[in-house]
């Protein structure tokens, strides 16, 4: 049984107005439990929208998304989302942020702090437990966000370009760190990025989307042992494969846009 399955989903923004905008068109795929799926595509391919729908924050206009064979009707603690901007609440200390989900369930302060500490240790932030988010670096904030999701016992981590705002060094550290967490816990991860090396480094499988609207271009299995060496032949092969796919896609999207603009000016 697949952990997540998307069955012919489409999403149209403002579908009831004249400014209807097709963001996602007829996408189907499924993710197995414990799998690391990366979704990659040019900007405007609706990858964030797709992730929000799996989280239950948005709903597809057509088609259905299932979690363990149950249709998704809203958010759930089984599926947690990590956003591009670290989304710690600035008025709570790190430990209270990590324990926020537990406090919503009415778990006593002692118990939730105990549990939060365990996960803070796992992400290496135990020393910063009583500091406030503005006192942490970007990478530390994202690690706290991951601890917050793990602390709820989430099964699926939905990550929306979580390392895009970090510098290159921190970014690579965080990728290694995420793989450790993933291998240690066996969570299912769906990871959105537009960064090709990141996709090759992390993924079991890579879903490539087209832009405007987002359609499935290709599903590629990255069959390489971990940890992966960015200088190896296999890595380069996959990198080139994705670059080719994305380049033709970006060019097509760009030309289409130019053509549309040309037609627009002619009509005027």
């Amino acid at each position, binding site marked *: 049984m697949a952990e997540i399955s998307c069955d012919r989903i489409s999403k149209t923004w403002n579908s009831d107005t004249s400014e209807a905008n097709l963001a996602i068109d007829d996408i189907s795929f499924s993710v197995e439990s414990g799998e690391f799926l990366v979704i990659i595509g040019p900007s405007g391919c609706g990858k964030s929208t797709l992730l*929000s729908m799996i*989280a*239950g*924050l948005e709903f597809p206009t057509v088609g259905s998304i299932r979690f363990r064979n149950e249709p998704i009707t809203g*958010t*759930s*603690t089984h*599926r*947690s*989302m990590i*956003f591009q*901007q670290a*989304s710690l*609440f*600035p*008025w*709570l200390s790190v430990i209270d942020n990590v324990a*926020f*989900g537990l*406090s*919503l*369930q009415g778990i006593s302060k002692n118990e939730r702090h105990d549990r939060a500490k365990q996960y803070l240790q796992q992400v290496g932030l135990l020393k910063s437990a009583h500091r*406030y*988010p*503005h006192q942490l670096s970007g990478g530390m904030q994202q690690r706290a966000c991951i601890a*917050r999701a793990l602390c*709820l016992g989430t099964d699926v981590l939905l990550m929306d370009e979580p390392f895009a705002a970090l510098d290159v060094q921190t970014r690579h550290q965080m990728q290694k760190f995420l793989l450790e967490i993933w291998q240690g816990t066996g969570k299912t991860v769906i990871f959105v990025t537009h960064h090709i090396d990141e996709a090759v480094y992390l993924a079991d499988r890579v879903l490539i989307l087209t832009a405007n609207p987002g359609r499935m271009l290709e599903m590629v299995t990255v069959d390489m042992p971990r940890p992966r060496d960015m200088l190896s032949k296999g890595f380069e092969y996959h990198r080139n494969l994705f670059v080719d796919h994305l380049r033709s896609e970006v060019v097509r999207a760009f030309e289409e846009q130019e053509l549309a603009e040309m037609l627009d000016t002619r009509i005027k």
Partner: protein
Amino acid sequence: MWWCLSLALFIGLWELVTALGWVNTLILPPPHEFIAEISNQEQFLSPRIGVARTGGNFVLLTAIVATLKRVIAGTVLGFIAAIGVGGLACYFDLFGKLTLPVITLLAPIAPIAWIPFAIMAFGIGDGAAIFVVFIGIFFLLTLATVNAINNVNQLYINTARVLGASRRQVMFRVILPAVIPDLFFILRINFFAAWMAVLAAEMVGVNTGLGAIVMVGRQMFNAKLMFLGMAIIGIVGYLLDVGFRQLQQRVLWWKGSSQI
């Protein structure tokens, strides 16, 4: 440092001008004269200003306490009511649609314009003054609350929802803490409108408090008393702002002091 120099220069010039006899000291008395009036206040204040005395004979203190009591009571009531109504208006769509247009219409009426009504409705005394302060805070702060709630970063709301928060939990655990800094800032600005309104109320009707002292000074053609009252109003107002800023830093510990 500059603060002291600026003040010293201002007072020095004032003293110089009066000492040289360029202005009529009956109308514009020099600072040392009206400040000396503190020791003398009993004779001017007691016959007219019907404040109950708080220990000793220091009438000025009673006036300050009377004014502060009104401002603080009105502010606290207005702040709580504004957050309550603003929150409800955002939480219950229908309630918002029914109340917000009226509040938007009432908000531009200056609190001072409410003074006659307040005196008619509550009589001369604390009730009227507190009402005026309440009005000055409530309408604008309610609109500010609605505005701040609508501007809360969607990221925080989505995060809370993903972590399993219900609609009510999102409101109380995320939206309210997120808007408090904005509201405090707006409260601090509106507070001065309220402070001025209560002084005006004390001048025209509520015959006690700091505003009344200035008015008694005019009625008795005692410029020293007038200026003494004005100086006290300035100092107390300044101290209130300092206090407010301290409070803001205490309550909003998660913001750097530069952001306040």
